[in-house]
């Protein structure tokens, strides 16, 4: 991991993004139970806060953040992504989080821009 980062300073920093997103999720839905009437508001808040923190880092990236939340009921859920980009500068990060009553999967895709 260190070699990968040292080789190209322009590469996407997965660890930092991971921490930012985890923090945002904990802030918004950290201690609450699934609530059907509030879930839309929560998801929007998670996504917007994550985006705001990512943009504040000031890196030359366009960001796409998606969040999927499912109530725990025994049913299965899979997420997958496939990307066509420049893997030396672009990257993605997926954070899986769960609580007693729900699963939350947040994916961040960062696409570089030329400056």
């Amino acid at each position, binding site marked *: 991991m260190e070699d990968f980062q040292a080789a190209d300073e322009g590469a996407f920093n997965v660890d930092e993004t991971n921490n930012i997103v985890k923090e945002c999720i904990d802030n918004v839905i950290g201690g609450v139970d699934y609530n059907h009437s509030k879930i839309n508001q929560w998801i929007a808040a998670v996504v917007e806060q994550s985006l705001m923190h990512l943009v504040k880092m000031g890196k030359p990236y366009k960001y796409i953040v998606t969040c999927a939340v499912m109530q725990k009921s025994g049913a299965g859920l899979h997420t997958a992504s496939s990307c066509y980009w420049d893997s030396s500068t672009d990257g993605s990060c*997926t954070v899986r989080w769960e609580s007693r009553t729900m699963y939350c999967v947040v994916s961040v895709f960062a696409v570089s821009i030329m400056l």
Partner: protein
Amino acid sequence: MGSHGFGETERLKKCKSFQELRAPKTQSALPRKVWGSVLAGSEMQRQQSRLLAKREQEKRRQDHRTVQSQRSKPGTNTSTNRLVSPTENIYEPRPARSFSAEEARAAMRTVLEGRLNGAKYEPQGSALAAVELAECVKKAVKALGYERYKIVCYLVLGATSPSDLSCSSRAVWSPAVDTYAEFCFQNDSLFALCLVFASYHE
């Protein structure tokens, strides 16, 4: 100058420019034959090392695939044996052809309906099926031929259950050139929500 695609034609152009660079070595003046040719040689070496340094910074587009992983594995970078010409990576603020969300949606519909019609949700096989589907959708959208667009395909596959699933996404990008398309397929056993984001490389 037209928009640049990535591929073999670019590589061939670069080889030609390297050959032109070699020519000066034979043109050193006669009276100071040895000194002149050494100078030309070292100048060429400096130019070569500059080109080599540029070559090492060369970036190639790679297909990249992730499966529910927290870290994205870097795609293997094949060694680039080509030189960077000054014409590569020109800044082009507007695409020659804007990404059409409708076309992408139609491509996604074709792929998902083709592969999932009559399919049943299986707890064991679905993880792999999700990755393959995402890969297929990405290939289909890539085949539409939008140049300088980076494509991100995100797929959620699950069993139809009485519980809710909510999905939301936001992006910070250039709304004039970047866009997204979505399609949700559902049958009595499973659902598949597919999102394709197209981001212009500016």
